[in-house]
């Protein structure tokens, strides 16, 4: 529904690379809305990417992720680095609309030309990120932002997509959200490179801190896995030498934030020196390919299935006339995609 007079993709890219923020904003919209143009943009920008350090900030709702991102971005600015921020909130499964409210906590950053904030809705993605997060990261990376901070939706226990999208993952906890058994469950806690106990001025902060410390002391040092097949044959001890540190912060006052940013930078050095960065980069590439390939295959399949057949098949599954596996066989057959 774009009624605007549209400059060409090429014009937008040239303008954006020259620092035009309006052009950058429109490129992100194109990429987020997918389609032919999105592919053209990403193909053209990919050679410019690979310089930014990508930091994921995740944690339960209300732990203070937005405020922490605001404080971290300010700290990076003081260190002379530019920051791109992607702030994600959920899309309503009912209306398809979304209320994106992370900017409310990021007022300090507005008007700083070294910071760019973009709010994204998940648009059906369930892993804590928006569907096009990785693509928008590529755009910001190509534009030369030194650090890209991705704030996930408020997560529960198993939304771990951020682990394959970021170089460094910060898991934010706050006092009073659960007893110490929460700390030893699988999922979000396992993907942390750095832990933060935010709102550390509140009662119970020490207990949360200790629960995390105990959890880290119990397990093997190498607790970052993504449920991806490629991780399975990784030699044990790849992360030897990096034990996730735990920091206390009061993000509203900036307390503990310089130390946290120091730790992110240390982690970056660790990744580079240990060879882990190269491995994470191939993991990110695999993830990206996987994602693009799935979408492309799905689009190709739907193109080849006769109009209305997909919807009809869905209804037949819902009515228990056929099972979903037979339905998939049927659709593959329709699209002439079944195995030889």
């Amino acid at each position, binding site marked *: 529904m774009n*009624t605007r*007079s549209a400059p060409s993709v090429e014009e937008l890219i040239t303008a954006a690379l020259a620092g035009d923020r309006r052009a950058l904003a429109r490129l992100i919209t194109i990429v987020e*809305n997918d389609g032919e143009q999105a592919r053209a943009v990403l193909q053209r920008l990919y050679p410019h990417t690979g310089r930014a350090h990508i930091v994921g900030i995740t944690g339960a709702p209300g732990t203070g992720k937005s405020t922490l991102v605001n404080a971290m971005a300010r700290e990076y600015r003081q260190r002379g680095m530019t920051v791109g921020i992607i702030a994600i909130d959920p899309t309503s499964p009912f209306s*398809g*609309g979304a209320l*994106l409210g992370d900017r409310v906590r990021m007022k300090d950053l507005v008007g700083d030309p070294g910071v760019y904030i973009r709010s994204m*809705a998940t648009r059906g993605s369930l892993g804590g990120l928006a569907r096009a997060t990785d693509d928008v990261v590529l755009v910001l990376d190509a534009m030369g932002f030194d650090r890209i901070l991705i704030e996930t939706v408020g997560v529960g226990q198993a939304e771990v997509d951020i682990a394959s999208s970021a170089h460094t993952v910060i898991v934010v906890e706050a006092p009073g959200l659960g007893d110490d058994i929460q700390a030893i469950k699988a999922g979000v806690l396992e993907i942390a490179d750095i832990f933060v106990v935010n709102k550390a001025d509140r009662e119970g902060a020490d207990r949360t801190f200790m629960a995390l410390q105990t959890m880290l002391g119990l397990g093997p040092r190498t607790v970052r896995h993504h449920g991806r097949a490629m991780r399975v044959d990784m030699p044990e001890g790849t992360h030897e030498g990096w034990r996730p540190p735990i920091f206390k912060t009061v993000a509203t006052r900036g307390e503990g934030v310089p130390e946290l940013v120091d730790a992110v930078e240390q982690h970056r050095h660790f990744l580079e020196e240990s060879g882990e960065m190269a491995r994470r980069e191939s993991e990110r590439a695999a993830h990206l390919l996987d994602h693009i390939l799935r979408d492309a295959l799905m689009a190709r399949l739907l193109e080849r299935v006769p109009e209305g057949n997909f919807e009809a098949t869905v209804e037949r599954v819902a009515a228990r006339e056929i099972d979903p596996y037979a339905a998939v066989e049927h659709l593959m057959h329709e699209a002439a995609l079944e195995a030889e």
Partner: protein
Amino acid sequence: MASSRKVRVLVAKPGLDGHDRGAKVVARALRDAGFEVIYTGIRQTPEAIAEAALQEDVDVVGLSILSGAHMALVPKIMRLLKEKGLNDVLVLVGGIIPDEDVPKLKALGVKGVFGPGTLTTDIIAFIRRELNLDTEEAPKAA
């Protein structure tokens, strides 16, 4: 899997009054109408609003003003939006706006002014009409 353009709306409260109930009600209604609403909260400067509209590449900017300062704030915001190249963004003002100021706001480029008692469905219908949504693939209505 068709590419889908989502309508993005910035809801902002410029100026010093802290009465954000109306802005929140409207933001929620727009969300339920299938729009992506970027809510920036109270006490936003005109510069912050224009910059947020730019970064978020919104189709619509909704300003909620109950302080009476609309004739000071809106011209500034309109000027900044233009300076940033956002000439084609649909700007709406809601709040307590005296009748005699409505034509003045419209002369500045504000497309719709919504006073107390406005139904949220009217605001949604207005946006859909202005953006020609009903002729194309449209988000589901609440």
